[in-house]
């Protein structure tokens, strides 16, 4: 039933071959074809702009007041590409290999290889748009390293890479809006997909200012709606990030792939109290220059700078000498949790470890600058001062952000950090063409499950989002639409539109009519707590089974006791949030179910029952070498379909970063 449509042939020729043979739509016909793009983050904006340029009639939607504000804007550290500008042995194959290995052998080889191939085009495209990447003095592009790799292939713009890439895509999108090729609907939320004769033919959206529901037709529908990390309530995602669009598609028949694969990022600012509304990431790029440590003594209450060198445990460097501070995220997160659970944590809550820049500030940057300036035997104060200048240029905004939030100056004292929910590898199941199992319904960017297996490497989400939007969908969608050129736009008076809109309106009325006692936020917090404790960094059978019961209970309580003030036909942020939290609750249950089914540890999914002697994740390839694609059957009822993963080029082995 699941056809991944992987083209035949040699791995490195599949994409070239595909492009050479896929069906095309001629320019005159493109103008007759309408495409709906939901979401205008990196994936959606790049797709909408590129499809508009090709001549399709595009309608794009986002819930923020401008496409420039999508969650992608917050990405900090960088974007990978196999350019090998550093001459350090990088290649398309190596990027492909690192990504497959980083994902703990749970991703499709064909997709990942294509991703590595087009990575180089992304950089060229962005430079041409005027994205101001970091440069060296010679005027050429600069690179930094990210976790899980031993080469420098990450392109960046200080700690604001996502912002600069999104602004590039946004500008390309606004250019198409100006040319009349794209019609932009801001402050609109998609609340259902309309399926006619098995094909996606449009959406129901709600205007978030007037509260009115609308019907929109499209020959195809693209969901570029981001990830669902906010199911945990606290995460590094933007406040509005949600699963609603993907979830509605799921309930309409689209399979959900690997829902339990979530990424916990090791370096985030720790929680300070119950008021906490979100967590702030401190980019992985900081691990280029920051060293992670805890005191060697348990419950050591001394200030960080008072603890002498020999009493510090640089536990990542100790446990993983080959990769040191640059091990992948899942490994680094678990190691931090292990130290804190064992009583070595720091700060008031003891749920934190240090990320310390002093060593590199002095030894790496300070000394180079001093030697450039011809200062002989510089003292430590001089080295610190000189080093600071360089660090400021590399990560200045991140250091400022840390100081604003914590009130501490990270140039002087080490940052305190702790793992937090960050990214979701799972998402709508898609085939090689990025099409879900519903004809004409596509999923791009973080919203699909595709390329990162069980753990995403740093700087590869931006790469995937832009690959999907700029370089994959413009080809693969043609292969479908070529057969649709005879399909006239379906009037939105069609019964399927009517039914879908009525269902959406009914649900809104039900929600607002509950008039219970508890706020939406309080339900969201409770869901987050269940998920974090029982489906978070470590999972086990007992906890997951309990979580499922608790979530079902929470769902009942939500639908009988949620309080939503205000009215339907006006701007009502509580109502918007209520719909999203209701979907998160259902998703939470499926995540636990998926985590329960997968009785192995792989990547970010750590089942306590399945670990090696020294506490590393232990896979069971014989039983779980598959993508779990869940079909929605009804309330709390799903059927599992398995897409077997075939490794033709890489031989899966136990990951080793030692």
């Amino acid at each position, binding site marked *: 039933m699941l056809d991944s449509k992987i083209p035949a042939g040699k791995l490195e020729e599949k994409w070239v071959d595909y492009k050479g043979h896929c069906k095309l739509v001629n320019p005159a016909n493109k103008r007759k074809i309408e495409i709906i793009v939901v979401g205008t983050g990196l994936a959606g904006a790049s797709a909408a702009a590129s499809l508009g340029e090709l001549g399709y009639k595009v309608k794009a939607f986002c819930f923020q007041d401008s496409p420039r*504000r999508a969650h992608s804007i917050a990405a900090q550290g960088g974007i990978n590409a196999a350019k090998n500008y550093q001459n350090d042995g990088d290649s398309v194959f190596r990027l492909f290999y690192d990504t497959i290995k980083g994902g703990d052998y749970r991703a499709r080889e064909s997709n990942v290889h294509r991703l590595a191939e087009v990575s180089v085009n992304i950089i060229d495209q962005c430079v041409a748009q*005027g994205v101001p990447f970091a440069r060296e003095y010679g005027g050429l592009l600069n690179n930094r390293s990210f976790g899980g790799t031993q080469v420098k292939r990450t392109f960046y713009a200080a700690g604001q890479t996502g912002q600069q890439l999104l602004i590039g895509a946004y500008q390309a999108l606004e250019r198409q809006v100006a040319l009349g090729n794209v019609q932009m609907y801001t402050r609109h939320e998609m609340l259902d997909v309309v399926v006619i004769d098995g094909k996606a033919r449009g959406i129901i959206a709600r205007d978030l200012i007037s509260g009115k529901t609308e019907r929109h037709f499209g020959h195809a529908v693209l969901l570029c709606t981001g990830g669902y990390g906010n199911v945990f309530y606290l995460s590094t995602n933007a406040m509005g990030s949600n699963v609603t669009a993907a979830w509605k598609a799921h309930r309409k028949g689209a399979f959900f792939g690997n829902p339990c694969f979530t990424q916990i990022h090791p370096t985030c600012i720790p929680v300070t*109290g119950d008021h906490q509304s979100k967590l702030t990431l401190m980019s992985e790029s900081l691990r280029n220059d920051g060293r992670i440590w805890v005191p060697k003594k348990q419950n050591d209450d001394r200030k960080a700078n008072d603890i002498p060198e020999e009493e510090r445990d640089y536990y990542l460097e100790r446990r993983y000498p080959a990769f040191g501070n640059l091990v992948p995220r899942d490994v680094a997160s678990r190691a931090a949790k292990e130290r804190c659970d064992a009583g070595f944590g720091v700060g008031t809550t003891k749920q934190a470890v240090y990320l310390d820049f002093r060593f590199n500030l002095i030894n790496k940057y300070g000394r180079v600058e001093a030697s450039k300036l011809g200062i002989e035997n510089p003292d430590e104060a001089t080295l610190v001062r000189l080093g600071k200048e360089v660090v400021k240029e590399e990560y200045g905004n991140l250091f*400022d952000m840390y100081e604003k939030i914590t009130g501490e100056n990270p140039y002087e004292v080490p940052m305190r950090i702790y793992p937090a929910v960050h990214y979701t590898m799972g998402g709508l199941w898609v085939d090689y063409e990025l099409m879900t199992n519903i004809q004409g319904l596509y999923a791009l960017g973080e919203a699909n499950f595709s390329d990162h297996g069980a753990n995403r490497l740093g700087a590869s989400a931006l790469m995937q989002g832009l690959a999907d939007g*700029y370089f994959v969908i413009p080809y693969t969608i043609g292969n479908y639409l070529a057969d649709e050129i005879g399909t006239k736009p379906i009037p939105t008076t069609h019964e399927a539109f009517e039914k879908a809109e009525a269902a959406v309106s009914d649900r809104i009325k039900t929600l607002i009519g509950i008039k219970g006692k508890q706020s939406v936020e309080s339900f969201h917090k409770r869901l987050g707590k269940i998920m974090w404790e029982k489906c978070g960094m470590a999972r086990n059978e007992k906890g997951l089974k309990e979580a499922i019961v608790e979530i079902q209970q929470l769902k009942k309580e939500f639908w009988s006791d949620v309080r939503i003030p205000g009215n339907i036909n006006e701007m009502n942020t509580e109502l918007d949030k209520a719909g999203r939290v209701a979907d998160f609750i259902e998703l939470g249950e499926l995540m636990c179910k998926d985590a329960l089914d997968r009785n192995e540890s792989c990547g970010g999914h750590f089942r306590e029952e399945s670990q090696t002697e020294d506490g590393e994740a232990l896979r069971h390839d014989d039983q779980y070498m598959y993508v779990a694609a869940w079909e929605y059957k009804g309330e709390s009822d799903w059927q599992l379909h398995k897409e077997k993963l075939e490794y033709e080029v890489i031989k899966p082995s136990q990951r080793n970063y030692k």
Partner: protein
Amino acid sequence: MEHYSMNLTLKVWKQQNASAEGNFETYQVKDISSEMSFLEMFDVLNEQLIHDGKEPIAFDHDCREGICGMCSMYINGRPHGPWHGTTTCQLHMRAFKDGDTVVVEPWRANAFPVVKDLVVDRSSFDRIIQAGGYVSVNTGVSIDGNAIPIEKDNADKAFAAAACIGCGACVAACKNSSAMLFVSAKVSHLALLPQGNTERKNRVMNMVSQMDKEGFGSCTFTEACEAVCPKEISITNISRLNGEYAKASLASDKQ
């Protein structure tokens, strides 16, 4: 860092929708921790309002990391509040002390009509970008990224200008409601790079003309914008825009 807790009086602008009259409402909030962000303090207030059966205050926010540009509160007479180079979402409650009264309003400018409470419509900024804030290049160029070396100094300046988050604080701070800092940041970003060179004349003319059409006021160089810009966009960008504009006008005169 010493943490403390505080009680505050809030005077917040309430306005049901674009056409309704608005007014200030007064609220009391208690036991606010100095570790909270300003928006988390608003979360506390909104939870309290919902609990009391009232409607919460609508405000725009998303990333809460100072980068999306969505948050937009005019706090005690200053866009984004008292901290320099800081968005509303990054402002933390240690900026206030027990017993303070805090007045919160939406951005006020003709080109930014109020949608509800503290939410305003900034789509005029998108239309200014549509007028020319881009490089006209389609997907699929094949020039290698390193084929265009860019002097580091120019690249850095372009990046500093491109850091604008489109929040609109510059407009809110300006007595003329001018959008010059925003427009000049985009003009500078692209004018400083070789990629933006071909279209630089049309770009500046069209963007400025759209800015005027949207009803933003003219720039009288009061520098109020720079003082409140959360990304510390420099007013030298305005001088650069003026230079670009003069050159472009001259060129079109000669035709």
